[in-house]
């Protein structure tokens, strides 16, 4: 509980900081007046329509990725698993890229996240069709890897066939992941699906604990593993699919955060869920502040930064697991 409180306090601090950091040199008091709806109308617009939804999305997406990562690692009993492993993120990205490629996103801005969500939904259907509802873990992972590869190939094809370099650029930059220029409409589109995903993962917590002892022991402890598997797949798909749909590809958060917090929570998968969600929110908030501070005006992408942070941690994990196998 103390860990959750500490992470929540950190999150609140970073959220507040995020509200007052940006490219416009507005100043603290003017920003505050803007949030309260007073002062320069342009400042009011920037604060209420850009920075506030940006900070809110950072919390939602970070929490979703952290929660999905903790749930999926618990389910697969593998600390190297991350939400993207089931292929949903790649398909959400494909959906969004197609919305850009076809020009749909230019006509109707919300087509981009909606197409991402459609891609995520399609990936779940394909995953279940490919691996079957009672699939074993290895089949599930292999199916996810195959789907990710297929989606990656189709994204490359879309880039390859893009009508002009600007369209290709737009797709490339979108895929790098960012929270810039998002509105409350994005929050409204993502929130119900993220909430459903969070509910599904949270409801699986007792089953995840039993699964720590192996699938057969879990069944003997009253866990319907087939049902648990479906809940985890749908939950992860909702969380990572909706997150990717509104923010692009933001990798490593779902991998790194649960790993960093696992020992502090005592190892039980159920105890890791809430801290990972809060920790994920804190990490995305921190990363989103960082991209605005270290290279102002250069639009450093959030997904690039999280990958830069995540890769060394991932390598460290591999190094450690190599030591265990030796």
């Amino acid at each position, binding site marked *: 509980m103390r860990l959750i409180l500490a992470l929540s306090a950190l999150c609140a601090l970073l959220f507040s900081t995020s509200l007052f950091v940006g490219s416009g040199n507005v100043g603290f008091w003017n920003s505050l007046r803007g949030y309260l709806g007073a002062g320069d109308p342009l400042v009011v617009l920037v604060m209420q329509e850009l920075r506030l939804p940006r900070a809110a999305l950072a919390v939602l997406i970070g929490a979703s990725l952290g929660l999905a990562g903790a749930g999926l690692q618990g389910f697969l009993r593998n600390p190297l698993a991350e939400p993207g492993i089931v292929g949903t993120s790649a398909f959400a990205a494909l959906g969004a890229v197609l919305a850009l490629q076809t020009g749909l996103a230019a006509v109707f801005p919300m087509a981009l996240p909606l197409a991402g969500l459609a891609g995520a939904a399609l990936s779940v259907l394909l995953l279940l069709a490919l691996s079957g509802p009672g699939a074993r873990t290895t089949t599930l992972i292999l199916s996810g890897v195959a789907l990710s590869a297929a989606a990656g190939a189709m994204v490359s094809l879309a880039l390859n066939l893009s009508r002009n370099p600007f369209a290709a650029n737009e797709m490339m930059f979108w895929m790098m992941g960012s929270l810039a220029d998002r509105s409350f409409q994005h929050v409204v589109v993502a929130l119900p699906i993220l909430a459903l995903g969070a509910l599904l993962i949270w409801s699986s917590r*007792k089953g995840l604990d039993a699964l720590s002892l192996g699938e057969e*022991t879990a*069944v*003997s402890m*009253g866990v*319907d593993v087939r049902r648990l598997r479906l809940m985890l797949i749908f939950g992860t798909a909702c969380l990572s699919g909706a997150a990717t749909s509104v923010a692009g590809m933001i990798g490593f958060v779902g991998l790194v955060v649960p790993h960093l917090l696992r020992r502090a929570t*005592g*190892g039980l998968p159920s105890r890791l869920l809430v801290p990972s969600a809060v920790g994920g929110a804190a990490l995305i908030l921190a990363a989103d502040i960082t991209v605005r501070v270290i290279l102002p005006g250069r639009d450093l992408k959030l997904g690039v930064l999280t990958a830069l942070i995540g890769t060394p941690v991932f390598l460290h994990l591999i190094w450690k697991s190599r030591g265990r196998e030796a």
Partner: protein
Amino acid sequence: MTALLTLRGLAVGRRLGPTDLALAAGEFVGLVGPNGAGKTTLLRAALGLLPAAGHSSIAALPITARPRHVAYLAQERELVWPIAVEELVALGWRANPDHRGDGMAQARALSQRLGLAAFARRQVPGLSGGERARVLLARALAQGAPLLLADEPCAALDPAQSIRTAKLLRARADAGDAVLATMHDLPLAARYCTRMIVLDQGEIRADGPPGTVLTQELCREVFGVAVLRHGAGWTIAELEDEA
């Protein structure tokens, strides 16, 4: 006497022929047989973990109702997450729908009773194979189910711990529970089990009190060893024609 487990014609492909079995309260049954005889298959099929023909009174129950009736100690001893011993034992307590609370106090008491106190606060993945086996058995016992199916509960244990574990399972049976455990140590099983079942090539070859089951002919034929009885104890020896 109430049967806590009933199998009627339970069969799994070529691995287990149609098997009938009834296990009553107060019995500690040692399921013995050479490697590949079908012992684990029988346990798994009885629990409903394998697609099987025939009837098992446990597999017929809804999954969520099973923890009330049966606890299972699987052969798998691997644990990925850094969970502390008492926390793991408490998972067993929490699995039983009749139990309330987080089970930490019960887990602590059980850990002390089973001699796990010395490493109760350590994390399970850091324990030795034998210590881990004892913790996992404690987890199964914490469930408080009247029937325990244990797959090689004495595997990886030193001789003293093997005896303690066999005595513990016998005490459970004497207290009114039923235990069905696969075992490889014939003298240990014969010493502490109330009943032994010899399984060979998926078929029950003998079933009864240890004294009547472990005949020279059967042990020679099924296990390829000689068995010697002296008082209450048993030893196994190499067959004379192989010596």
